[in-house]
């Protein structure tokens, strides 16, 4: 257990560190164009700081206008945002999960989740933590592109006295 705790300490640094692309293990340092690529530190260090993933609080960066990523390329694409939270209660001894549609639909389209990953009915999808850790359900994105699965409290964020099901977004 001690080893595991130390491991977390290393992954969750309080001072952000972004590897230089010439030394990140995947870019070829002999590529003549490497100096033309942007260093992560240049772009990411000016955004709200996080301890995991890209070390950026992407939801805040968007909400507070640090970034303004395009919602569409084609002019007639229908942009849908939904303000609805789902309280998910099958969490065993952990706190209940609050799934916020708003934060997700700012980034994603409904079709990215419905109905391929989640049924559009609270409680209908058989989500479990082991499946999430195997890269299904929430783990399709969390652990790949969105903040990683080490951040239990961000999903398990509400008391188990909360009424499960659908609530208006916060």
């Amino acid at each position, binding site marked *: 257990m001690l080893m595991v705790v130390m*491991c*977390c300490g290393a992954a969750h640094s309080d001072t952000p560190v972004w590897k230089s692309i010439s030394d990140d*293990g*995947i870019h070829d340092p002999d590529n003549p*164009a490497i100096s033309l690529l942007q260093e992560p530190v240049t772009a990411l260090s000016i955004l709200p700081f996080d301890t995991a*993933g890209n070390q950026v609080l992407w939801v805040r960066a968007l909400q507070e206008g640090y970034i303004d990523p*395009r919602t569409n390329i*084609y002019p007639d694409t229908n942009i849908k945002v939904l303000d609805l939270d789902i309280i998910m209660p099958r969490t065993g001894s952990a706190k209940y999960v609050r799934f916020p549609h708003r934060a997700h639909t700012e980034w994603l389209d409904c079709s990215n989740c419905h109905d391929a990953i989640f049924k559009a009915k609270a409680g209908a999808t058989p989500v479990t933590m082991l499946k999430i850790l195997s890269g299904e359900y929430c783990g399709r994105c969390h652990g790949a*592109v969105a903040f990683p699965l080490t951040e239990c409290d961000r999903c398990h964020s509400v008391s188990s006295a909360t009424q499960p099901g659908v609530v208006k977004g916060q």
Partner: protein
Amino acid sequence: MVLVVIIRWWLLLAALMVTTMASAEYADVILNRYAEKEGMRPVIFPHWFHRIRFRCKVCHNELGFEMRVGANDVTMSDIIDGRFCGMCHNGEVAWSVENCDLCHSGKNGLKSGIFGGHQTGGPGHW
């Protein structure tokens, strides 16, 4: 019982984090189905760079990129014809295809996959 289960997750996560620390910016994708075989370096797609400029829905809904590494059969002629990366890397939305080395920037020998993610060697591989 609960404790045993939780410890098991922590061990899975610890393994996941060791691979994370080894390299790359979180969510960098390697595309190397054809490139290296055809004498080009593997392609690196940086999510962090693109998500500052585009929401996920642009690529994963409008442009139709499947959200699964390796699920899109991308070839260079598709790109030149304006599909996949070529929807933007066409000299209009972003610089065009003649900048080979900006995309083909990976070390030879890398397998297609996502870095810092579960596909890298985390629980998805158990």
